[in-house]
C-alpha cells in the first residue's frame, strides 16, 4: 500500500499581542502561515536566526516553509514579550 503524505499548511493567528497557537508542531516540509489580525503591527522573528517576517501590518500575512527538523523559538521584534514556538518533526 502506498502512503502519500502531502505537506500541509498550518495557521498561526496574531491577535491581542499573542500568537495562537503559541506552540505548534509540524512536519518537515510543512508551511506555517502567520496572519496578523491585531490592531498593532507585529513580526515573527526566530531567535538567533535569519528567519524574519519583517513588519506585519494589520491584515498582513507571511508564510514560511520549515524544512529542517528542530525547535524554532520566535518572538515579535516590536513587542518581545510576545513569544511562540514551532517544533518541526522529521
Amino acid at each position, binding site marked *: 500500500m502506498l502512503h502519500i503524505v502531502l505537506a500541509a499548511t498550518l495557521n498561526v493567528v496574531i491577535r491581542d499581542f499573542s500568537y495562537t497557537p503559541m506552540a505548534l508542531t509540524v512536519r518537515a516540509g510543512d508551511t506555517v502561515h502567520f496572519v496578523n489580525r491585531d490592531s498593532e*503591527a507585529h513580526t515573527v522573528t526566530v531567535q538567533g536566526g535569519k528567519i524574519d517576517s519583517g513588519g506585519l*501590518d494589520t491584515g498582513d500575512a507571511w508564510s514560511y516553509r520549515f524544512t529542517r527538523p528542530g525547535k524554532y523559538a520566535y518572538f515579535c*521584534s516590536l513587542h518581545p514579550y510576545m513569544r511562540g514556538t514551532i517544533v518541526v518533526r522529521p
Partner: protein
Amino acid sequence: MKRSAFLEHVAWTGAGIAYSLSAAGIFHGTAVAQTPPQAIDFVQISDSHIGFHQSANPDVSATLEAAVNAINALPQQPQFVIHTGDVTHLSKAGQFDTAKNILGKLRAPLFVLPGEHDFIGSDRKAFYEAFPADAQTGWRSWDGGGVHFIALVNVFDFENMGLLGNDQLAWLERDLRAHKVSTPIVVFAHVPLYALYPQWGWTTEDGAKAIALLRRFDCVTVLNGHIHQVVRYQEGSISFATANATAYPQPKPGAAPKPGPLALPHAALLQAIGYRNVEVQPDGRAGIAERTLG
C-alpha cells in the same frame, strides 16, 4: 554679526564669551574664561510612525508635517531638533523617504535616533541610509552651550526590551569621565532608561548601569520617546521625561490590557501629540514646555 547669529555662535562653540549692549545699542563681545550665561534651547520630537494608517491617526504624515511647521514658525529657532525614534512604522523604504522629506523641511539642524520600529528586519540599512550617523556605532555625544549632550541607542538588541550593551556602556563611562560634576548633562534614547513599566516593555534592561554612571553629576536630564505620552520622574539629580508622539497616544501604564494605539476623537488626538521645547539653564536645570498640535 546679528545678535541671534552671535548667540548661536556662542552656544555652539561653548567658548566663554561675555556680552553687553552699550547705551548706544552697539553690541560688544569679549572673550573671557567663563561659562556662557545663556540658556540653550532645543526641540524634541518622537514616534512619528510614518506608514501607520489605523483609526488612531489615519494621517501620521500630516501630523508630523504640522509639528515641523510649528517648529519652523517658532520666533527663535532652536539650536537643534532631535527625533528620538520610531520615525517609521515598519522600516519600509517608502516610509523612510516620506519621513526624510518632511523632516528635511526643518530649519534647525536635525538629529535622528532609531526606535525599534526603524530596525525591523535583519539589517538596519534602511534607517542609516535615510539618516546617516556620524559614527559607525550610532551612539554619540557632543557639546553645545556648556551642555554635554549624549545620544544613546537602546534598540539594537530588542529581544530583551531596551538594551544598551556592554560596548555602549563602556563608551559612556569613557565619555563621561572627562566631564566635571557641574557640567549639565542631557541624555537622549528611544526607550526609557529606567523601569517605567516593564510589563509593557517600557524599560531598558541594563539602563540602571547607565543611570549609575550619570548619578555623580549635579544635573542630568534624560529624554526618551517610545511610550507616546509624557511621563516625568525624578531620581536624585536625574530628571527623566518621556515625550508625546507626533503620531498617536498610547494608554497610561496599566490603564489597558495591552499597550498600543489609543483612538481618540480628532480634537483630542491633536491635544495628545506634538513636540516639546527644552531650555537648559547654565546650572543644568531643564525647562520643558510641551507643545501639542491642538
